């Protein structure tokens, strides 16, 4: 299945790191979530974007969000991540009520439990790629060498040439940046993952690697919410598709 990384045995009980969770416990749960934006400087226009969104994702399950561009897929994902404030309803991730949590609790959740691969890489200029990828592990207090080794393994797997590892990814091509972003998102074995178009702008070989990474994450019990415009990729990794247009404010009466 893979190179450079230990092959994981999905059915080995020793591998399951989430035994503290009840079998059916939800990693990610949204109950009746609404989101609207109030634009104070544009005549206080209120733009409702989502209403009554409910969703449950169990461990080891991948749910794909579908719907036309602008339907609110990324918005829903950002609400789960705590990047957007929900206007109403409850978002729970790994037992933490994200809607009520303090900033430091959300930061701890993001460090330990909830990973997010966004469409764009945002990094401090000048930091070498290897460090960018290792950072989530260093933030968790892992041994530096172990973190760098793991980062190197992921970069090699995603075909980022070794001569680029010491350089900042800010100068890389779009596809390379996207792969660095993915490597960073998979550096730590997050129990829950949000993936926004992880296979966009990738060639066939790298796309295959990313799909393998997603399958491995499912295998180790990660709950995943993804947006995939690539329908073949979606069919391969998604267990369930949820059309977010059902949460469009006009429809839910």
């Amino acid at each position: 299945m893979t190179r450079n990384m230990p092959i994981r045995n999905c059915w080995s009980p020793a591998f399951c790191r989430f035994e503290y969770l009840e079998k059916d416990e939800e990693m990610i749960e949204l109950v009746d979530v609404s989101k609207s934006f109030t634009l104070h400087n544009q005549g206080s226009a209120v733009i409702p974007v989502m209403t009554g969104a409910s969703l449950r994702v169990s461990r080891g399950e991948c749910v794909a969000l579908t719907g036309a561009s602008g339907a609110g897929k990324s918005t829903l994902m950002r609400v789960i991540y705590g990047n957007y404030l929900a206007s109403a309803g409850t978002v729970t991730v790994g037992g933490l009520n994200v809607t009520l949590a303090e900033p430091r609790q959300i930061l701890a959740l993001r460090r330990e439990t909830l990973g997010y691969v966004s469409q764009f890489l945002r990094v401090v200029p000048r930091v070498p790629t290897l460090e960018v990828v290792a950072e989530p592990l260093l933030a968790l207090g892992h041994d530096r060498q172990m973190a760098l080794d793991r980062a190197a393994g992921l970069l090699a797997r995603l075909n980022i040439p070794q001569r680029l590892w010491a350089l900042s990814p800010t100068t890389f091509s779009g596809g390379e940046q996207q792969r660095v972003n993915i490597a960073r998102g998979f550096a730590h074995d997050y129990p829950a993952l949000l993936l926004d178009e992880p296979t966009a702008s990738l060639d066939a070989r790298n796309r295959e690697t990313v799909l393998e990474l997603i399958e491995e994450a499912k295998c180790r019990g990660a709950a995943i919410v993804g947006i995939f415009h690539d329908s073949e990729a979606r069919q391969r990794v998604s267990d369930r598709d949820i059309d977010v247009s059902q949460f469009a404010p006009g429809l839910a009466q």
Partner: protein
Amino acid sequence: MTPLLQVEGIEKRYGARIGCAAVSFDLYPGEVMGIVGESGSGKSTLLNCLAGHLAPDAGKVVFDTRAEGPVDTVTMSEPERRMLSRTDWAFVHQHARDGLRMSVSAGANIGERLMAVGDRHYGSIRSRAIDWLDRVEIDESRVDDRPTSFSGGMQQRLQIARNLVTGPRLVFMDEPTGGLDVSVQARLLDLLRGLVREMGLSAIIVTHDLAVVRLLADRLMVMKDGRVVEAGLTDQVLDDPQHAYTQLLVSSVLQV
């Protein structure tokens, strides 16, 4: 967990004018908080009240001291507060000249803070000074040079070394990257991030640069006319601002 700093109802008036008012928050160990707002919004006044440079007219600044646990630093005696600002606290000024002694060498600038906490061994002070110069990426050969011969970015890094050498737990920073070239800024941000993580520092950073807080701060407080109008997780406040003023601030940033 006990907050490292508990701020309750801080108010400072300049005559009838409000410097800052009704500011309350808790800061936990390892947290980095940014304070943003336009010039005159009261952010520097607040920082100076928190750091003991200005006496607030009302409110408490309770710091979790190593020896006695939480103590209100506003009512603390002057010598106690000065001891705190030499040991557990550090203050990085916008202009390095305000935080450095320009007439003594770089090594002495770092060593002075060590001597202030009782270090007397010349050899060990010098070797620690050199070690810190290296950590802030200043060549060892510059240890005996005065900061007047340093570039602006180097002076700022020297100021940071001088402040961090005693292993403080809370760092106050007033526009630490203000007035520096963008390339120098990036280098300083990278350095600060690394130090914050390695040393487990808590920090309060006042800046008007939203890009700086996005990269450095976990939490953000937005001030206008001396009051806090919005607070929360940094990326949430910047990406989904709730208050009219924050929306204006975020939408006014020029794109490059």
